[in-house]
């Protein structure tokens, strides 16, 4: 449990938010060209990092907007929050 600074609403309790998993997984541009291995990689394989990870979050019980977060999964410390479409901050 921690506080999240929603870029649209400000600081709110984590339970207002829904975690959306790993960020910056690009949807395949040519889905019909993909091999089964590439589909598996896109759909299922995850970095699941212990340490600093880039994630998507949704303010489900608030403004319902999506945004990105850089978070250390070993201690739940939030390093940065940035809007969808913005360039991820360099570490």
């Amino acid at each position, binding site marked *: 449990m921690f506080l999240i600074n929603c870029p649209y609403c400000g600081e709110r309790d*984590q339970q207002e938010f829904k975690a959306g*998993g790993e960020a910056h997984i690009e949807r395949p541009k040519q889905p019909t060209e993909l091999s089964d291995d590439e589909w*598996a990689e896109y*759909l299922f*394989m*995850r970095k699941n*990092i*212990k340490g600093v990870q880039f994630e998507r979050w949704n303010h489900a019980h608030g403004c319902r907007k999506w945004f990105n977060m850089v978070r250390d999964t*070993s201690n739940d410390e939030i390093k940065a929050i940035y809007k969808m479409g913005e360039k991820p901050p360099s570490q």
Partner: protein
Amino acid sequence: MRNKYSIFSLIKNALSYHENWQRAWKDPTPKKEYDAVVIGGGGHGLATAYYLAKKHNMNNIAVVEKGWIGGGNTGRNTTIIRSNYLWDASAGLYDHALKIWEGLSQELNYNVMFSQRGVMNLAHNLQDVRDLKRRTHANRLNGIDAVYLSTEEVKKFCPIINTSQDIRYPVLGGTLQRRAGTARHDAVAWGYARGADAMGVDIIQNCEVKGIKRNGDSVEGIETTKGFIKTKKVGVVAAGHSSVIANMAGLRLPLESKPLQALVSEPVKPIIDTVVMSNAVHAYVSQSDKGELVIGAGTDDYVSYTQKGSHQIVEGTLNAILELYPIFSRMRMLRQWGGIVDICPDASPILSKTTIKGLYFNCGWGTGGFKATPGSGDLFAHTIANDEPHKINAAFNLNRFVSGDLVDEHGAAAVAH
């Protein structure tokens, strides 16, 4: 030679004030090379080593554990054992384990306190009723004992449940697997450790793996905090930290690691003599031999390795427990903790070879791995020794995420994940 535990050894040691018991396992320094190394000294890892030595004559092997044995999820779960899974592959896997549980204390000469007190799963809405009836039929077709119970029969089997139809999520029925139950989780790790050690397995604690050394597509050894260990076969049984080890080998796994919480109450006199699980409201409860209520809560929905978990998860579970068991309203909770569970997209485990020769993964057990401990060890040992899966774990390969042949137990198993 290992001394056998018996009534006579107990009397003999009582006479010397229990000061002369033999060590249950040694504390060796790692050798330079092993035929195989198991990463992770939890129940699954120790069972893997035990069966590698016992059934496959691989005695020059080691288990490396970053903390102490059984200090991870083996010591953090709610000890429920059952095999009432929907799909054929899962039923085969979990019932294989349940059959080994039934003779495990005798086999290990170690009392794992396996207690077939039954596991009851409750239905709280019409879809639950349909799902649980379907699962009961599927279980019976697979030779797994299962009965469907009416609300009255649920009340008769566990009288303290509130079966009033006026509550928010009334009990509409349930299923019962009588062969299911609980075991003492620490004893399982200790019993397997003692058994493996007696057959020559080195159990190396406080030894964290820092890297996997590869030569092209083959494993050459592991880098640890106690130095380099050469080996051609590495079995990874690292639960929530499986992805961390996979990243060292340059692999990606279909896993997300999340905190799962459990809690126990202050000890009270015997009040509930079975295990009751409720999928819809996510509340499950049993009572330990010490008298504590053992309560399982849910996972947080974000990736975290903190072994903590959020307060509202516990609150939600306790709300449900109080509605179902008003008698517990003045119970005080004694301890709460979290464990990191590795969850697959289909909520089924992976016991598999990988694209790297000599590297095997046993992971993805998610929120329900304890029950499978003996079967998981047995089948993973088979997979490592023969470089081929056993037919029981063949479906639980890593390639199913490429082929699409998933074992989709999400919501179909007896409890939500």
